[in-house]
């Protein structure tokens, strides 16, 4: 008799090419050599884990899948252990054509670069308020004290919800994006709590309209002049909160992590501030935080590899961005890289609606940090930890300020 109940559901990986697992601790810690191994083996690899899942490993295979809405659906955007029928929709990220375009067009105008310029002074102020709280200590956990709070407060400001509710948003995101991969009850509870939270804000605005993104969505009309369903509005609000926080938190954190251990890049950015936009694109390429998912709907061939329905796809934009066939010295951070068609915000119709917000937040967060704290390094007494799963970035980032002695 054997009792298998004690076995972990995710045994350690021994064969990455045929049995990959993006929740394995080694992937979380340092995925880059794993991706190189997979890419060398095949442009598309498969695992039986997660009820069957492919992963495109090259830029070209990722691009093909991202552009192919006929064979690949976005109705499930996280690769998980389970595939329950009733997943919460969050238009437009979970929408396929023809529903996708109208849902996306509602959200695009508030996120244009010009709209972000109006938000920029508030984000600059948020950064300085945060730095004021820890700069005198000479050290901080930059993930807990800085990178986490910049996007939370910015998106709360845009949505018109209290910035002081940040901690509860961060709890929901951890439960949905990390714990939710393996624990459906926790995920559903978090989705339910978020829905209740936003439903309350919608009710308040029915009595007292405000000038914010929640009101914009409530006032939106479809082509036939009808308001969006409550489900659509709530789904889009959940999306904006989830997608707008730990993604940029991760990107800012990974950038500071890189700068903490690369004094030459740090000094160059301090000396040449005009290089920042190019550097931000390179940091986005090298440390892309977001991996998406698709579901195979119809059999097809991707980069010569057969792909069959019933499987999910781990759509790793981060792995595409490390493909040496497209990016020379792909594993090097070249902060003045000239040609950089990186896919950090996705490719095709699902291009991240918040990409202009993310870029502005990253730029401002790095600029304000470097102005106040031009010299910093990782604290050898602390430990850097990375988030697991769909969005990768530092969750503990202990730093010491000033030059090393």
């Amino acid at each position, binding site marked *: 008799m054997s009792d298998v109940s004690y076995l972990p559901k995710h045994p350690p990986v021994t064969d990455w090419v045929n049995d990959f697992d993006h929740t394995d601790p080694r992937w979380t810690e340092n995925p880059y050599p794993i991706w190189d191994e997979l890419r060398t083996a095949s442009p598309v690899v498969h695992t039986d884990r997660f009820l069957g899942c492919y992963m495109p490993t090259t830029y070209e295979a990722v691009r093909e899948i991202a552009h192919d809405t006929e064979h690949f659906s976005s109705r499930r955007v996280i690769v998980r252990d389970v595939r329950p029928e009733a997943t919460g929709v969050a238009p437009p990220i979970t929408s396929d054509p023809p529903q996708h375009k109208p849902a996306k067009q509602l959200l695009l105008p508030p*996120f244009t*670069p010009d709209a972000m310029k109006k938000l920029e002074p508030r984000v600059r102020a948020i950064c300085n308020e945060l730095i004021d709280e820890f700069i005198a200590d000479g050290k901080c956990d930059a993930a807990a004290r800085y990178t986490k709070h910049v996007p939370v407060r910015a998106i709360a400001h845009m949505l018109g919800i209290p910035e002081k509710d940040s901690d509860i948003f961060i709890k929901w995101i951890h439960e949905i994006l990390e714990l939710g991969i393996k624990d459906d009850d926790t995920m559903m509870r978090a989705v339910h709590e978020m829905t209740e939270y936003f439903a309350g804000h919608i009710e308040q605005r029915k009595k007292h309209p405000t000038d914010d993104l929640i009101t914009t969505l409530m006032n939106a009309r479809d082509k036939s002049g009808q308001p969006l369903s409550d489900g659509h509005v709530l789904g889009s609000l959940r999306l904006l909160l989830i997608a707008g926080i730990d993604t940029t938190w991760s990107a800012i954190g990974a950038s500071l992590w890189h700068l903490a251990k690369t004094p030459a890049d740090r000094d160059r950015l301090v000396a040449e501030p005009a290089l920042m936009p190019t550097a931000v*694109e390179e940091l986005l390429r090298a440390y892309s935080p977001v991996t998406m998912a698709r579901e195979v709907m119809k059999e097809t061939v991707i980069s010569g590899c057969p792909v069959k329905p019933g499987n999910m796809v781990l759509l790793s934009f981060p792995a595409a961005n490390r493909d040496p066939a497209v990016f020379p010295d792909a594993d090097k951070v070249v902060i003045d890289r000239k040609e950089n*068609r*990186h896919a950090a915000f996705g*490719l*095709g119709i699902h291009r991240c609606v918040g990409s202009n917000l993310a870029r502005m937040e990253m730029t401002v967060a790095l600029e304000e940090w470097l102005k106040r704290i031009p010299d910093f390094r990782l604290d050898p007494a602390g430990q850097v930890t990375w988030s697991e799963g769909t969005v990768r970035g530092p969750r503990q980032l202990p730093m010491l300020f000033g030059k090393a002695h």
Partner: protein
Amino acid sequence: MAKLKIHVDQDKCQGHARCKSLAPELFELDEYGNAHEIGDGTVPAGLEDKAWLAQTNCPEIAIEVTEE
């Protein structure tokens, strides 16, 4: 030097806005953030490098640069 002309393919552009950031003299964005060449797309003398820079950074390969 040959004169350059640029064109943004509206079927391909997804609004990454890289071109607008790299070459604001040559591209403008509409209310959805999708890019369009300014005017008829003729690249003024001196801005050729920016046209090529925008073209080589577009993730959707949506920018055509032609030499007239």
